[in-house]
């Protein structure tokens, strides 16, 4: 169970991540380093300092692989979903109002209580993409009952959900709608990658239409590997997420986007 925690050296954070983040520039809009000219990217990265690095994606620049037929498969193209980076580069997301909601009046040392409250009522979004959705439902049904921890009811509308459980393969056609869903959820919100396909592409590493890990398009808090993981795995991951919420981590304006899994996997 890998817990992506915004680069502060933590559980499951691959060591390659931070090094490659140094290697990748501010990448003006946080774009992936192109495989065609990795050297230039490195140079610009070394000159760049400051908070931009926090929001730069972690992408291992391609120095090994060249497309056999660039006409057919054009690697090295950047993500066109970069608005999250641009938002992260601004300070707009760092305002604590989102964290406070209507309780702006309470002094800041009541924060821990709020986090306890949130950790105990995590409403998932009822959105299943593929196979793992069945196991997600199974985790909510009678045999292993997620409701015991308050991870119920599954909200149908993203406006009322706290956790986005991405259950199943994310394809390039679905990436846009899913990011839109993620943006429609109000702060504070968390994202759980359920299953190998969402963690790293899984068995669709070689596919021409699958996203190689959803952390290329949205920040992820908890990774739950498995194809598909058992319902107990999902429940364990949600409990890990609760711990992560208690530790006052996981606010996406402070998280960078980009694969936190080394690309070699």
């Amino acid at each position, binding site marked *: 169970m890998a817990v992506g925690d915004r680069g502060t050296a933590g559980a499951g954070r691959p060591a390659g991540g931070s090094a490659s983040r140094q290697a990748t520039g501010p990448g003006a809009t946080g774009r992936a380093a192109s495989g065609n000219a990795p050297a230039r990217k490195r140079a610009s990265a070394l000159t760049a300092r400051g908070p931009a690095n926090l929001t730069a994606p972690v992408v291992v620049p391609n120095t090994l692989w060249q497309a056999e037929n660039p006409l057919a498969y054009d690697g090295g193209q950047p993500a066109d979903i970069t608005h999250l980076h641009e938002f992260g580069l601004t300070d707009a997301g760092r305002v604590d*109002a*989102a964290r*406070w*909601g*209507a*309780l702006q009046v309470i*002094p800041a*040392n009541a924060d821990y209580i*709020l986090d306890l*409250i*949130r950790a*105990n*009522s995590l409403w998932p979004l009822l959105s299943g993409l593929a196979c793992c959705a069945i196991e997600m439902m199974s985790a909510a*049904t*009678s045999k292993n*009952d997620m*409701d*015991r*921890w*308050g991870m*119920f009811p599954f*909200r*149908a*509308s993203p*406006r*009322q959900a*706290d956790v986005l459980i991405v259950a199943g393969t994310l394809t390039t056609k679905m990436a846009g709608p899913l990011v839109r869903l993620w943006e*429609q959820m*109000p*702060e*504070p919100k968390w994202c759980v990658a359920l299953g190998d396909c969402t963690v790293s592409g899984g068995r669709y590493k070689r596919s021409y239409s699958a996203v190689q890990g959803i952390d290329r398009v949205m920040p992820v808090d908890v990774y739950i590997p498995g194809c598909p993981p058992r319902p107990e795995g999902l429940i364990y991951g949600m409990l890990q997420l609760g711990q992560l919420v208690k530790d006052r981590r996981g606010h996406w304006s402070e998280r960078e986007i980009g694969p936190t899994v080394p690309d070699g996997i």
Partner: protein
Amino acid sequence: MSQAFRLPFRIWASLTIRDRLGLLALVMIPGVLGGAFVTAIGIAVLGPSVLDFLAANLPLVRFFVAATAILLLTVPTAFVLIYLELKVIARMNLRVGPNRVGPLGAAMSVIHGLKVLSKEDFSPSGVDVTVFTLAPVVTFLASVMTLLVIPFAPGIYGQDFNIGLLYFFAMGGLTVLGLLMAGWSSFNKYSLLGGLRSAAQIVSYEIPLTLSVVGVIILTNTMSLNGIVAAQSGSIFDWFVFKQPLAALIFFIAATAEANRTPFDMTEADSEIVAGFATEYSGMRFGFFFFAEYVNVFIVSALCATLFFGGWTAPFNWPWPATLNGFDPYSLGVLGWTAIVLVLIVGGTEVLAPLIRLAGGRSWDMSSTIWMAFAVTIVIGLGALGALGFVAFGWLRGLVWFMAKTYFFVITFVWMRATLPRIRVDQLMGFAWKWLLPASLLNLFVTATAVIILNR
């Protein structure tokens, strides 16, 4: 200027938590003392006239007090109902339900509420912000204001209108306004469909709902809910559910539709229109809708109990007199009751501790023994006081009966939600206009005829 304006904030930001608290204390202690002094002076000077004023228009004071109490009690009621629904539906689904937060997960609904309260509060792009913001308030207030006329117990009611029932239906009809505002203002087709559905549904179910009550009004010659309850006092057979069974059935069905509960929950049909009128609502705005739904359930159940099941009246004549053979519990006064309670607690502890020690053997050390005895005494004493009060005070007895009847209907609603699927819109309308309306008219006709014949 601006620097000087910002200076205090900078100082405040530079302080540590302890310094901030100390500073607050330094500022507040004189403030509190001065306030107390001024209040004392004020009471000494203005006291009599204020008391005269209050005594002069007592109903006004009573109204304000009742309104405040109702506003304060609404949200806890919603919390209780939400927890009830979570648990009961879970058990009906062969699940456990929330059991981690609080004893048996009893705090879960409160946690949900607080979490919703602390979510980011924003209005999406494209919405009509004013209407979008007002809609939840309208819905919530419309359902809360109906609580004003419900008699919880003899003497415990917000206001006793002689048109209480009319007022109730008028306020209940205001709910649809909020839902319609929500559906229209939030820039979303699902919301629009939900809002229009709720409008059509509530408007068409208002009619059988109102007509089914007219029979009761004919029988009692009053629209004041207190009067209706008083007319049912006596034995269980004075309840109107026996005199007006058809009306009771129609009222229950129409009330289910009025409260947007399954199988009539067209407005937030999850599998059709995502969350209905509340699709675009987040944070506390959604929380208002959430609470309003459950307050509606409570109100509808309370009205069912009031109109047809005798309200706060006991199902049978209470055997004992309200005063225990001449002993008037009011005569002791506060001091007397306090002394009694203290003596009971101390004495009970003294009596129980050795018994527990004997029973527990060596496994109990002294302190835990005493604490155990104290706890047992408290429990027994509270039970005894409750029983005494139940026997002695009529309002407590009425409250207990009223709540029992109300929660019976609440659990019936939850049961229906766990069991029944949702019916289609056209079936909904057809049912309202083809079956409920003629049935209620028939009931009205039969009742009127019977009254005329019997009075002659």
